[in-house]
């Protein structure tokens, strides 16, 4: 996974396999709030009649989660980290139709 010029190693394990952590630089976070698109919402409403996957929402949340992840990576890169470990995702619905996607992890320097 890349962010700008810096190549960051991202993992949700406590260590990067095959590398050692030399310095911890604190928590790196990134979040984004996305609302449902009204046109997609109507289509999803129709799709909801027969049930199954709502592709419009899957795409929306994928895009939003990528953005949250990129913001977390930018935060980590700004701290001078070259890796982020123990990454976790969290989602919460802020209001009807809007959800907040949150990614957090520990920014570290690895060798």
């Amino acid at each position, binding site marked *: *996974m890349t962010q700008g010029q810096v190549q960051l*190693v*991202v*993992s*949700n*394990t*406590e260590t*990067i*396999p*095959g590398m050692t952590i030399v310095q911890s630089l604190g928590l790196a976070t990134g979040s984004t709030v996305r609302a449902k698109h009204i046109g997609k*919402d109507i289509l*999803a*409403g129709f*799709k*909801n*009649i*027969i*049930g*199954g*996957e*709502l*592709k419009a*929402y*899957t795409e929306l*949340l*994928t895009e939003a*989660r990528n953005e949250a*992840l990129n913001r977390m990576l930018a935060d980590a890169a700004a701290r001078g980290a070259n890796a982020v470990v123990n*990454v*976790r*995702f*969290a*989602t*919460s*619905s802020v*209001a*009807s*139709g809007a*959800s907040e996607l949150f990614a957090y992890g520990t920014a570290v320097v690895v060798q």
Partner: protein
Amino acid sequence: MAETEFLMSDLIGIGIAICITFGPLAFSAIYGTIYQKGKRNKLLEREKQIGGSFKDPITNLSKPIGNKNILNSSLIWESVVIGPSWWQMLLGWIGSLFGGRLNAFTDIYDWARREALQRLREKVISSNFDDVINLRIETSMMSSTNKSKDKTAAMEIVAYGTAVKYE
């Protein structure tokens, strides 16, 4: 003659009213069941190809099994948003009056989770990694609040882990 015509138009009116009221629900019950069954069968076929009974690349252990040297690793994730049909929601509502098992919801949410995991397996294979370790599954509701008119009920499932490549 005039009387019978009046009756006829009355019957047509009632028929249209019934169609508008119960039509979508009947459509949901019949077509929704067929559609979901088809999708589920496709998932079963995909599960047979990768993972399934023999070699599943996904574990939720924090280290890979055995003394394997890891070449490189990366965060990997896949998500899916799945909602029950109106018919299933009605069944669920009726079921929740009596309590106990809600088979309609059990089925669809089990399917959603398996779909997310299967997508992760396919992504691991296509992005040239060997295994996924430290798998986590996160669930969140996308359904609206009680006051809203929006009837959409959906659950988002994200499965994420660390993809590893062995030497």
